């Protein structure tokens, strides 16, 4: 029964939920579900999982830009049909995994992936920089301070060798969120790139009452910085709002409710860089990322300062950290004073917290390094 635009309730299905997870499992996964015994990475990007039944499953991991077209997905399907009996999966970090249970298909699959220009980079396993998880940026978001896909592409181009190798002391997880709403929740990453606005919204007083509902704009502000205000322009009175700029923390929620409060600004916007977070419980508990660089301007299309700053952090870490130390563990060992010294990053007043509970981050010991 085709869709009937005149009667959308006809044959309507709702609340059916997603397909059950095992509907798309390859037979080998169905058979060995819960029976896997151990795994090994046999080369960067290629894993073998061995089951108690003796079955072996090879996974070839490739990076993707996340933002992809139907043509790309169809190409993935063509490859999966050719080598993987029509099955494929995605990881939580936007990598694709092609799964083969027949080892004789592994090398031909790898050769095929490598033959497709740069579209299917193999890697993202072990002590590497795997794919960057990121948000939408200028491609499709309404409050971004930075682009997402362009910065990710530029950073990954520069750090590509680390995607395809296991030569870092431990894995380095990079994430990007294009404003501090962080729909990508980047606050526990080894390295986080975070879009920051630095100018509060401006108010188009003559438009506010026509395009916005003032009580909702006021309610939308998380810090209660917005109040109603009557404004007179050329003898005409407008219902509008005023903003306490000192309380603005640049989230853009007011702009969501009211297009007459634009927050984006080409001169003011840019990125902050954060380091040392992790989510795994391995060795030390999960950690938040901490501020490394408060602001880097937008430099499209290749964002050289962001790219070089991250490269510098990664290379300093790579040469100085011990095996298994994540960036945060490395910094804990050497101390923040050494981190800034070794990376050459400037320590500024923005690094010293002045929000709630700030004092828990200040140094309350005479122990520090010269």
């Amino acid at each position, binding site marked *: 029964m085709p869709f009937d635009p005149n009667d959308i309730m006809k044959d309507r299905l709702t609340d059916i939920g997603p397909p059950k997870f095992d509907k798309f499992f390859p037979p080998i996964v169905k058979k060995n579900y819960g029976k896997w015994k151990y795994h090994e990475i046999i080369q960067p990007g290629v894993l073998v999982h061995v089951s108690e039944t003796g079955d072996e499953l090879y996974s070839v991991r490739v990076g993707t830009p996340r933002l992809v077209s139907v043509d790309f997905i169809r190409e993935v399907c063509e490859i999966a049909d050719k080598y993987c009996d029509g099955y494929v999966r995605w990881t939580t970090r936007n990598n694709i995994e092609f799964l083969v249970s027949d080892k004789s298909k592994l090398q031909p699959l790898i050769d095929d992936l490598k033959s497709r220009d740069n579209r299917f980079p193999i890697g993202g396993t072990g002590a590497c920089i795997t794919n960057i998880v990121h948000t939408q940026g200028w491609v499709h978001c309404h409050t971004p301070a930075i682009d997402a896909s362009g910065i990710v592409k530029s950073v990954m181009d520069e750090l590509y060798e680390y995607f395809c190798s296991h030569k870092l002391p431990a894995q380095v997880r990079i994430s990007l969120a294009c404003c501090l*709403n962080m*729909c990508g929740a980047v606050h526990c990453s080894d390295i986080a790139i975070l879009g920051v606005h630095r100018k509060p919204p401006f108010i188009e007083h003559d438009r506010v009452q026509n*395009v916005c*509902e003032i*009580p*909702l704009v006021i309610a*939308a502000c998380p810090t209660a910085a917005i109040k109603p205000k009557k404004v007179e322009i050329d003898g005409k009175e407008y219902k509008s709002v005023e903003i306490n700029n000192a309380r603005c923390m640049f989230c853009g*929620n007011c702009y*969501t*409710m009211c*297009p007459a409060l634009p927050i984006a600004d080409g001169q003011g916007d840019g990125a902050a860089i954060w380091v040392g977070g992790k989510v795994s419980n391995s060795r030390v508990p999960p950690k938040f990322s901490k501020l490394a660089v408060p602001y880097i301007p937008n430099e499209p299309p290749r964002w050289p300062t962001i790219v070089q700053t991250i490269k510098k952090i990664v290379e300093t870490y790579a040469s100085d950290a011990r095996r298994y130390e994540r960036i945060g563990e490395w910094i804990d060992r050497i101390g923040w004073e050494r981190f800034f010294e070794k990376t050459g990053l400037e320590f500024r007043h923005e690094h010293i917290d002045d929000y709630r509970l700030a004092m828990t981050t200040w140094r309350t010991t005479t122990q520090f390094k010269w």
Partner: protein
Amino acid sequence: MSEEAKQKILEWMKSQKKTKHYFNDLCKAVPELSMRQAKKLINELVSEGKLRYWSSGSTTMYMLPGADDVKDEEDKMT
């Protein structure tokens, strides 16, 4: 009983200056009901076309539908 409560919700909506309301604001119109009971009635009002959702993407609110509200909004946006 439930029709009466639904009517109370709609009357409350009409009496407000704001056009969009959070779920827990709506529940204030029927304080005698638990939030889960209220939710059931609000769902029914939505499926009857008497209430509609508004979403900022991160937060959702409820409003009374207008005759041409989607078109009006889209005209305003573009």
